[in-house]
């Protein structure tokens, strides 16, 4: 490895408290794995349903440690020129044309494949950075299995090999978070290199605290009610259960509407904020109105 590990965290408790200070409420698993990631210098693969705060976790850790967040949004068809590096062809061309007759071929050859003509992309940027960084590789399940292989070298060795330049090693080991919505099975090779963290919908107590932390002005009893209703709706067999971010949106809406206690009518009228599919809304509305 390129450099010795510099530990950012003292203990699991410190991670949790630190995250709490910036309004991210971590449970045992989240704080524990973040702490381990720092200690072992390994990337974390965060998996779970959409909208449970996977991306937010990376952002919050970056904020907490005062590091810069470098984000690579994955998409189908992504290739190394978008993820790792690319040669600046146009500039190279200009360089060759600028002095056609003065220098010998070898000089130009060495010259045009140097740092000056290299365009860094997120992955390369993360390991060449001098300041502390957190690297977020978002929605890694969107790329094809073949493209995953691009990530392997950087995840296990923290280095990038560029054929013309050689291997660039990391100056420091960044914290790396990969997120996945589990739309497909990731390759064994990728999983093996990562710590695995599953982030599920929070427990009712935690969700209530999240609402309290994220929505200023909400009362204790309303937050409690919100958390209970959301748990109740999640227990239904839905196409897409309400996520934490949708819970927060709902809380904000209720606050704007000056609603202090939720009753059936309020719940039904604002369901469309929690649920995004018409079939789900109909189902939840039906369920809420039938007593027992």
């Amino acid at each position, binding site marked *: 490895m390129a450099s010795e590990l510099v530990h950012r965290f003292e203990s*699991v408790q410190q991670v949790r408290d630190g995250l709490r200070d910036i309004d991210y409420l971590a449970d*045992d*698993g989240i704080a*524990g*794995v973040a*702490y*381990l990631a720092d*200690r*072992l210098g*390994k990337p*974390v*693969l965060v*998996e*779970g349903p959409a909208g449970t705060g996977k991306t937010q976790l990376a952002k919050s850790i970056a904020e907490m440690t005062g590091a810069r967040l470098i984000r690579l949004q994955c998409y189908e068809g992504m290739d190394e020129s978008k993820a790792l590096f690319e040669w600046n*062809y*146009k500039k190279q*061309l200009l360089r060759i044309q600028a002095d056609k007759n003065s220098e010998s071929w070898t000089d130009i050859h060495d010259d045009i494949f140097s740092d000056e003509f290299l365009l860094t992309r997120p992955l390369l940027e993360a390991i060449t950075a001098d300041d502390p960084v957190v690297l977020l590789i978002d929605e890694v399940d969107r790329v094809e299995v073949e493209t995953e292989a691009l990530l392997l070298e950087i995840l296990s060795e923290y280095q990038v090999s560029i054929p013309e330049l050689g291997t660039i090693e990391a100056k420091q080991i960044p914290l790396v978070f990969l997120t996945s919505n*589990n*739309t*497909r*099975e990731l390759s*064994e090779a990728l*999983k*093996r290199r*990562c*710590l*695995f*963290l*599953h982030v599920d919908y929070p427990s*009712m107590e935690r969700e209530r605290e999240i609402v309290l932390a994220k929505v200023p002005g909400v009362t204790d009893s309303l937050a409690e*009610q919100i958390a*209970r*209703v959301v*748990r*109740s709706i999640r*227990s239904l*067999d839905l*196409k897409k259960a309400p996520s934490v971010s949708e819970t927060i949106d709902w809380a904000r809406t209720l606050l704007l509407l000056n609603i202090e*206690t*939720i*009753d*059936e009518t309020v*719940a039904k009228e604002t369901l469309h904020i929690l649920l995004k*599919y018409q*079939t789900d809304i109909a*189902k939840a509305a039906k369920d*809420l109105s039938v*007593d*027992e």
Partner: protein
Amino acid sequence: MSATETRSMLDLLNGFVVQLREAGLPVSLTENLDAMDAVQHIPIEDREAFKYALGATLVKNQAHWRSFETVFEVYFSLRGPEYKLANSDGESSELDDLWREMQDASQEGDGRGGAGSLDALTPEEIAHLLMQALMQGDQALMKALARQAVQRFAGMEPGRPVGGTYYLYRTLRNLDLDGMLAKMADAANHGQESDAGRLEQRLEREEFEHRITEFKAEVEAEIRRRLVADRGAEAMAKTLRKPLPEDVEFMHASREEMVSLRKALQPLTRKLAARLARKRRHGRKGPLDFRNTVRHSLSYGGVPAEPKFKYPRPAKPELMVVADISGSVAAFARFTLMLVYAISNQFSKVRSFVFIDGIDEVTDYFKATEDITEAIHRVNTEADVVWVDGHSDYGHAFEVFWERYGKDISPKTTVLLLGDARNNYHASQSWVIKEMRMKARHVYWLNPEPKSYWNTGDSIVGEYGNFTDGVYECRNLRQLEGFVEKLA
């Protein structure tokens, strides 16, 4: 950590990994090393963190978490000070203190002020106490009562080789939790003013249900601890083990297991779709893409130095699924329908058919709704699949299929037949399959029965199988996945 400590930790961890592997979890060598690394940083005393540390390094699939947790609880149940049995001295006095406090706080302990210990209570009082604990959500008291209940009602005998479910059943039967739920709901309503909304009541009830589930889990954990203490972790690991979702048999899956099966299906059908379509993104077989070439030539000063090609368009897979939904494969049929539903979301052209002795097309049921339970319900109630008596008749079903839909099979079509081929000694009409195979791209048969049962009794899977591109045993997700892999 000193050398000996590290050594004993290593042994402990190795034993654990062996247990995990025996439960079917794939743990690689590197993951084992990572776990070893991880436990250097997390003390074993911090139980939850320790569990998550091991989980993060050893378990890379959320579906395996439950199995992991069970193995963990069994293996580490007696390693750690706070996990001793309730009988030990410190523990019980702590409980009694709690109980005395309770008595002091509430004036309800009428007539029994003298009793200072939980052990001295009558069953009615235990029930009353439990109800209070549940209603107030008092975690500590719930825990204490779970222990007390197991000690009292489970009737555990040392050395008796029965599984935990038996004891669980005995304990819960004595507590009558369903009755308690009703009583709790009554009490809650009674206490409040009647204008509390119906929504509020409902939420309250759900809260109680949630607490009761928690209590049951606590009882289960207590029984497990006692069993392990009695018979040792190694012996219990085997009996208490929970199968991985991919090893659960479709025919015998519980409701809970069905849910996790359905979740696991989604990625699999994507894979199936990809395999059948055989994407050819690599390889330049397509014609020259003139536009793209000219655009890229601009970087080379107008010289088309980098020719660009169009990618060949992958063929759109067409799929016909023909599934048996008769009683003999009822459990499998449910799964089959889930599979059909999942498949129809992935493929552009899927037609699905179900049959018992008659056959009917059900494509529209799946298209019309986004709700799978509703679709399955409609298939089971509305599809016209009974011709004479509602006993499987593959021959007749295939014949009708060929008559009505045979003309729709094209060289691009893949046909999946799902069923146990138990034909009740009717005529097989296997020529249909033969014809089908001539016309279609592929014909596959998936059989939910164990291979050893094939061609016994009225099963004639062999006769049909001769005419297909392959018959596959498909009893669990692992085998289904194997089938998908083989398609490549």
